[in-house]
């Protein structure tokens, strides 16, 4: 087990090095040279000279790369946004919690709806409910997130007016304190219950839109896993010894069927990060997704370079945690 974790961690090294190399050459391929590209409109000759000094841009390319690695890894310095003139790391600290909150709610929605859906579909295998759930999950993976987001926004925000259509919190709540930048958590800590309700209302539509694809996949996998497990000998034994059906389903079927589901949940969590770009754009939600989107339009290369590196690292780490977690909960797999 320990060897598996160590090997998996070692595999991170080439992946992260490769990524940094890609991003490094990416910025160097931009028009006008890296200093001008990264400084944007602020590129005065003095600033360019200063920048060239800091990143060693007058030195040979391989030295530049090591300098870039050093500045990024040691100082955790991702540069300064060309558009807002603020540190990229500061902006990530503000915006990443928003995306995490959104992704968490989306996953919660997918799991809470998807697992029962898949379970009951398998129980009524071949029946009407099963057919409907299969159809729904097919629709789920065929509707692009942003199309669903626009439709949800139109129906529930514009037409019915039940839920807010943009943002993360009502603009009138300007005195709310944000010690952690996780607004749900902040509202609970500060015991601002009306703020909490407002924040949750802002999360519902984006979370449903973002959660639609994981929902479809979780439902499919749960269905397949329950169908697999249902005919196992131990389930038949449990039934034969007269356990009530609910106990058999809960303790024997579902618990074993959920193993593959957990992996899928983990893998999908990583993918939510890229889906967030579209969802956040539709709902003007101030997370990392809409931030990157704006960065593309402003040609804000420090934000793009730093933001993409950050998200990729998070994605890789999530996958690592999923793999290790899977090994921990599944006694049959010991990754030797």
């Amino acid at each position: 087990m320990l060897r598996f974790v160590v090997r998996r961690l070692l595999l991170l090294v080439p992946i992260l090095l490769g990524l940094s190399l890609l991003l490094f050459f990416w910025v160097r391929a931009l028009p006008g040279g890296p200093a001008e590209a990264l400084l944007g409109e602020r590129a005065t000759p003095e600033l360019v000279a200063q920048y060239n000094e800091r990143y060693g841009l007058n030195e040979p390319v391989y030295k530049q790369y090591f300098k870039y690695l050093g500045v990024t890894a040691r100082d955790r310095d991702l540069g300064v946004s060309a558009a807002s003139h603020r540190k990229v790391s500061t902006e990530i600290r503000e915006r990443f919690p928003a995306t995490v909150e959104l992704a968490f709610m989306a996953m919660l929605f997918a799991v809470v709806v998807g697992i029962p859906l898949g379970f009951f579909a398998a129980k009524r295998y071949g029946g009407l409910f099963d057919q409907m759930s299969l159809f729904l999950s097919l629709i789920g993976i065929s509707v692009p997130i942003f199309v669903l987001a626009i439709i949800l926004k139109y129906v529930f925000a514009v037409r019915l007016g039940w839920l807010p259509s943009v943002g993360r919190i009502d603009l009138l709540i300007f005195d709310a304190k944000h010690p952690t930048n996780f607004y749900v958590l902040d509202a609970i800590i500060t015991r601002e219950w009306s703020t909490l309700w407002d924040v949750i209302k802002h999360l519902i539509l984006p979370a449903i839109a973002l959660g639609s694809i994981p929902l479809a996949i979780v439902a499919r996998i749960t269905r397949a896993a329950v169908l697999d497990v249902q005919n196992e000998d131990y389930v038949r034994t449990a039934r034969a010894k007269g356990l009530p059906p609910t106990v058999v389903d809960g303790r024997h079927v579902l618990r074993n069927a959920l193993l593959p589901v957990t992996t899928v949940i983990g893998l999908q969590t990583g993918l939510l990060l890229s889906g967030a770009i579209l969802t956040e754009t539709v709902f003007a939600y101030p997370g990392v997704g809409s931030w990157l989107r704006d960065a593309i339009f402003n040609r804000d290369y420090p934000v793009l370079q730093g933001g993409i590196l950050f998200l990729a690292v998070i994605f890789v780490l999530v996958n690592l945690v999923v793999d290790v977690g899977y090994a921990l909960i599944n006694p049959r797999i010991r990754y030797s």
Partner: protein
Amino acid sequence: MMSVAELEAAQIQLEQPTGGLWHEAWYRLTHNVGAIIGGVLVALFVVAALGAQWIAPAHPSNETFLIGGILKPEPPSLDHLLGLDIQGRDVFSRIVYGARYSLLIGVVSVSIGLSIGVLLGSIAGFVGGYIDALVMRLMDIMLAVPGLLFAIAIVAMLGAGLWQVMVAVGVVNIPIFARLLRGSVLAQRDNDYVLAARAVGVPRRRILFSHILPNAMSPVIVQGTLAMATAIIDVAGLGFLGLGPQDPSTPEWGTMLTDVNEYLAAAPYLAIIPGLAIVISVLGFNLIGDGLREALDPKLRGRA
């Protein structure tokens, strides 16, 4: 009541399609309701794309001047089946011409991903050793970045535009095909027929291209169909983000949704119609892909 002879005839009918893998796969595909629906949807899409100039009643960038010379959106009516957009252009014509873009982008980007991915994957699987390790680690790095984010990074580098989007979505597909083909080639490499070919002195390149690859292709065909679906979604997503064709009069479906937020209350059909067009074409490819997967699955062979 059926006579014994009729029953036997029915029996024979069932057993008939055993003329090899492809014959059987075709039989199963054409007897799969989902795949047939998918085929109809995709056919609609392809017909719209190829025959746009005959089907569409107007040119996609023709503006219909209304009374008083004001351009404004108009809900669907008999004159304009799907209404007029914000510039007074016929939405139905734009959707029909838009199919052309989606088909072109889908085919080109999947071809890029498929050809490079298949080449890399089959070389890695067939040659093995350090070349295999090198290629596959590179693929791991590419897979380490979520697909859409990766595509955005590429577009940010190349600049926004139609061909840039095709390249970006194609590159994102490379590692998926490479992995798939490597696994498939590895599974075929030690088969007896490869050993036989080797024993009679067939050159390595010919073993790979005329013996192993044809046998390793069926998962690639399935993945290729499903990749068309994802490519259409990704390209529409990039178009929606404003990274697609830069001329806003281009009737690309995702691009048509870019500014839709601003007039969602006044003209919701402008959001729903291009959205539906995307969903229908994606659904079609997904259904065919699922059908192909079942039809080509060797575990299901013989169960027509």
